[in-house]
């Protein structure tokens, strides 16, 4: 769907440089919001003792998810290859419906806007949105 331009890539890298030290907090907040605002996403985490925002499992998993985003930033020139293992994981082990990637992406954007209102300009927004859509596409690569 989306091809990242050189401008998109440099914008994402620059933005990531500014927000990455808060990656754990962003992940925890975004995941917590996703589970609350889109309750259907909770179906993937029924094995957790606590799915509420700020809980242990949510924080730990948010950190993990942002680790994946960090990896994606480092592999921005070839996401399909770079995220191959993660795609296999999501396709065969976790079997997450790909529509949920869009939902989590939206929550990440909301949290970045909330925490970094000055840095999250419309230009940064479009590049990050395109990047997250490209990550989602790479993650869905091995599905079928």
């Amino acid at each position, binding site marked *: 769907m989306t091809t990242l331009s050189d401008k998109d890539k440099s914008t994402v890298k620059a933005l990531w440089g500014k927000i990455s030290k808060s990656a754990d907090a962003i992940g925890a907040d975004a995941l917590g919001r996703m589970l*609350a605002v889109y309750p259907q996403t909770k179906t993937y985490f029924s094995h957790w003792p606590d799915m509420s925002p700020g809980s242990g499992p949510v924080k730990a998993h948010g950190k993990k998810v942002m680790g994946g985003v960090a990896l994606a930033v480092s592999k921005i020139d070839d996401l399909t290859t770079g995220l191959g293992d993660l795609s296999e994981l999501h396709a065969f082990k976790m079997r997450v419906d790909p529509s949920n990637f869009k939902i989590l992406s*939206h929550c990440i954007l909301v949290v970045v806007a*909330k925490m970094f209102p000055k840095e999250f300009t*419309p230009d940064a*927004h*479009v590049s990050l*949105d395109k990047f997250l859509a490209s990550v989602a596409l790479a993650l869905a690569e091995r599905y079928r």
Partner: protein
Amino acid sequence: MVEWTQQERSIIAGIFANLNYEDIGPKALARCLIVYPWTQRYFGAYGDLSTPDAIKGNAKIAAHGVKVLHGLDRAVKNMDNINEAYSELSVLHSDKLHVDPDNFRILGDCLTVVIAANLGDAFTVETQCAFQKFLAVVVFALGRKYH
């Protein structure tokens, strides 16, 4: 019919009571046109939309952003009958403006982002839940009379 808790009602009322329409409306619409450029198809008569800066500086777009944001007042005032409240506007968007209803959802997402940026930590999880539920109901109502 949609059921609202007392907390949801007061969250929604609070957001709109403290909203700077002249600031948030233009920002939300501009962001929509920049982040999802295909939405520009509805704004052919609005002048220069060639760059993000042109869009941000476009007075017609800014005015329209204010208008659209005030369009949500109708829902705030009629929380218990949003479908009926948007009946005519739904027909208008379908038959006269020919707007793809998916754009309502897109604009709603942009508005959520702008309000999150505006409120910061005050945009709590509960606030986002109530606000997105509210927007989803309005989006549904606006798409309801399409045929």
